[in-house]
């Protein structure tokens, strides 16, 4: 393999490049990305709070980047993948023997908010800078749509900055699909405990305002005043550029348990990849930092081997910082959840999920040490 093109230069793309070099690839390495590599998790946390700057969240120093000895095409998007190679927005086509698809995901937007000022999403550094500026202008009422992790983190940051915040969640219980109903409800309590209003079980019907948002209309007819709205309603994988590539795409690039597509020379990693999880037996798009950091080691080994020789068999893990508390989760939630340490009322506890007698997942608030112990036990459960 003489040339490898890595498309996407966030965490998964950068780690893939580092793994290629670490695993002995000494050929031409081409890095294609809309943005330089930076760490996204702080954007909805410490960056909004002003605790870290754009410079602080670089994923690699200049020395690390130089060590990759790569050819960089930054500030440009890949528009097509075909027999002749990757075609970029500036018309350049790069032919390679191996391809790493790491284009991540794009924040979902609300159609009703199109052409309306004051409605934000948060995915990129540019988004975070814009939101920070809008918050500095002193909005009188902030509405966050979606009580998932991004929504909750943004609500928390806005509250810590002193704003009046309302969170609107269409589902009856926040985070239930991820944490189960019981733990989702516990997380939902964090909002009220910190003087943030949480409205659940009501979808957003639209917005009021002329040119700029003035309020959010709910499906039940209520209206919530808002001069700043943040939509945290998920992300969709960035796969449009793969139309016509022959790669199978269905809510992400379909890959096997080793992150390899139907073409052994094309791997996909991070938020854009939907891999066959050997632990769960289903296809999963693991939209979390840890997976984006860990999948490339496996995927690159398979790319260099020319076939799937190793598998990505790790339990999903993510963390979230909300209202000064640290939430950690690993594995899969079930309805059988038991508190094994602490108590939910104090918001300092460890919960273990089971299927029969088998541990399937762990969730904890402000209990990193016991969480880590259980997470290790979980990884041993196969």
């Amino acid at each position, binding site marked *: 393999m003489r040339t490898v093109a890595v498309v996407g230069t966030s965490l998964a793309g950068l780690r893939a490049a580092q793994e290629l070099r670490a695993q002995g690839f000494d050929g031409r390495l081409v890095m294609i990305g809309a943005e330089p590599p930076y760490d996204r998790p702080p954007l909805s946390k410490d960056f909004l709070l002003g605790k870290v700057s754009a410079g602080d969240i670089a994923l690699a120093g200049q020395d690390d980047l130089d060590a990759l000895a790569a050819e960089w095409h930054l500030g440009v998007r890949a528009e097509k993948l075909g027999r002749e190679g990757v075609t970029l927005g500036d018309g350049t086509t790069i032919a390679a023997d191996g391809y790493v698809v790491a284009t991540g995901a794009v924040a979902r937007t609300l159609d009703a908010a199109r052409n309306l000022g004051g409605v934000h999403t948060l995915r990129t550094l540019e988004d975070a800078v814009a939101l920070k500026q809008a918050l500095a202008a002193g909005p009188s009422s902030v509405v966050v749509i979606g009580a998932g992790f991004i929504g909750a983190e943004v609500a928390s940051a806005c509250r810590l900055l002193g704003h009046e915040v309302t969170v609107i969640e269409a589902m009856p219980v926040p985070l239930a699909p991820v944490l189960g109903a019981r733990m989702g409800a516990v997380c939902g309590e964090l909002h009220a405990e910190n003087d943030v209003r949480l409205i659940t079980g009501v979808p957003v019907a639209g917005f009021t305002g002329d040119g700029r948002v003035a309020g959010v209309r709910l499906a039940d007819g209520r209206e919530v005043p808002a001069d700043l709205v943040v939509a945290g309603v998920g992300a969709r994988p960035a796969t449009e550029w793969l139309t016509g590539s022959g790669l199978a795409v269905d809510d992400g690039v379909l890959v096997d348990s080793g992150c390899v597509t139907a073409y052994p020379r094309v791997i996909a990693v991070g938020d854009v990849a939907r891999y066959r999880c050997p632990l769960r037996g289903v296809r999963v798009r693991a939209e979390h930092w840890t997976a984006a*950091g860990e999948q490339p080691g496996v995927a690159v080994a398979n790319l260099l081997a020319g076939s799937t020789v190793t598998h990505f068999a790790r339990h999903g893990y993510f*963390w979230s910082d909300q209202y000064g508390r640290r939430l*950690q989760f690993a594995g899969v939630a079930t309805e059988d959840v038991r508190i094994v340490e602490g108590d939910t009322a104090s918001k300092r506890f460890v919960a273990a999920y089971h299927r029969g007698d088998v541990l399937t997942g762990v969730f904890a608030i402000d209990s*990193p040490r016991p969480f880590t112990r259980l997470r290790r036990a979980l990884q041993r459960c196969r």
Partner: protein
Amino acid sequence: MIRACSVSELPEGEAVRLAGPVPVSVFHSEGAYYALDDTCSHQDASLADGWIEGCYVECPLHAARFDLRTGAPDCLPAKNAVRTYPVVVADGVIYVDTEARQEVA
């Protein structure tokens, strides 16, 4: 020299965090005691809450591993070492010399 704790308070595989302007933790692993800056050099997490194995501690947040002997990270995401400090055990008490800021590896 500051008193960390007595030997009996720090079993094998455990760590204790010392209060102070810069939190320092003492780790007990494989019969030896090590003192390091407690805050992971990658992102705000306490290494005392981490997983201690051999001469390494793994950060509880992102699994960056630090060598207890040198403070150097041996894998991403951490890029910078954490400081280490001399540890002295006398009469069943563990002391840390937090004044002697050792060179970062």
